[in-house]
């Protein structure tokens, strides 16, 4: 049973970023191949002459996929809150992927600023998708200020290292069985996405893994199938790991030939 995100059931557990593609045409092909439930978008300064943002907005409308704006690059609560307000007006949605970056080498969230920004934005009527870590105490604080979704990192943004702390992600899943959880950041290949869904995560957010692949549209298709496999596997209830071998072929009835 798919969990809803602030009352909305996504058509796919794949959330796809729109940045870093070689061209708008390749982005379009990748989105069509991935069939994501949402695409993430951002805001940047607009030049009156180039109007690059207007062309991008046209492409987003053409694709017809729900958008999740982010506050990428924000390092303070004030920056993030102001950016969220601008995004709500421009994109016409009260969903916001809240990033308050705390450290440049890892781009890990400033979880203290994150909780405060989430509190302010929730009070302002936003539906906040906080980019956080797998820390359970921070997660509790985010839920306490009104977040109904949590987005822990798998690994640092853009690193492609997959699920760095499977134990922590598993603990988070077990601790918050009813909260929609999304692995955001660090996924490098489709097997990482499948693994997140096998762990019981409700969605994955991917950007660099598709955009920086040699063939982004083909990789997008691979992720589409990977998330389907992950959901099916989770539903099918995976076997438990064992430390020792157990024969899969029946021993009974084996001929005595020694």
């Amino acid at each position, binding site marked *: 049973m798919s969990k809803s995100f602030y009352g909305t059931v996504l058509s796919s557990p794949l959330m796809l970023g729109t940045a870093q593609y070689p061209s708008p045409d390749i982005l379009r092909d990748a989105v069509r191949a991935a069939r994501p439930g949402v695409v993430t978008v*951002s805001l*940047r300064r607009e030049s009156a002459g180039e109007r690059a943002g207007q062309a*991008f907005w046209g492409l987003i409308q053409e694709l017809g996929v729900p958008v999740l704006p982010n506050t990428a690059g924000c390092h303070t609560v*004030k920056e993030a809150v102001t950016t969220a*307000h601008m995004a709500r007006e421009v994109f016409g949605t009260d969903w916001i992927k809240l990033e308050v970056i705390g450290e440049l080498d890892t781009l890990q969230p400033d979880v203290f600023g994150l909780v405060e920004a989430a509190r302010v934005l929730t009070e302002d009527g936003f539906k906040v998708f906080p980019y956080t870590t797998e820390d359970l105490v921070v997660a509790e604080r985010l839920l306490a200020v009104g977040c109904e979704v949590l987005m822990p990192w798998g690994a640092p943004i853009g690193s492609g290292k997959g699920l760095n702390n499977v134990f922590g992600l598993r603990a988070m899943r077990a601790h918050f069985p009813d909260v929609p959880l999304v692995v955001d950041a660090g996924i490098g290949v489709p097997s990482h996405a499948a693994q997140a869904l096998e762990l019981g995560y409700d969605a994955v957010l991917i950007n660099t893994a598709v955009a920086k692949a040699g063939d982004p549209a083909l990789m997008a298709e691979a992720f589409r199938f990977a998330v389907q496999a992950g959901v099916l596997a989770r539903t099918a209830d995976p076997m438990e790991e064992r430390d020792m071998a157990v024969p899969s072929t029946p021993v009974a009835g084996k001929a005595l030939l020694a």
Partner: protein
Amino acid sequence: MQIVVNDEAHEVSAKTLAALIDELGYGGARVATAMDGSFVPVPYRARTVLRDGARIEIVAPMQGG
């Protein structure tokens, strides 16, 4: 009046943020605005008076992860 738009100095005749948007050629564009670090929603642009040295941000949809 001299103001700063997206980190570039501009000499403008506009008196309000709404007039500035038109004067700079953003008319009809899907943009959001801030003045001196504070968000200015569309309905407030016409009554937002510019002052010399104001820092204006004009942003639009962009690719994001």
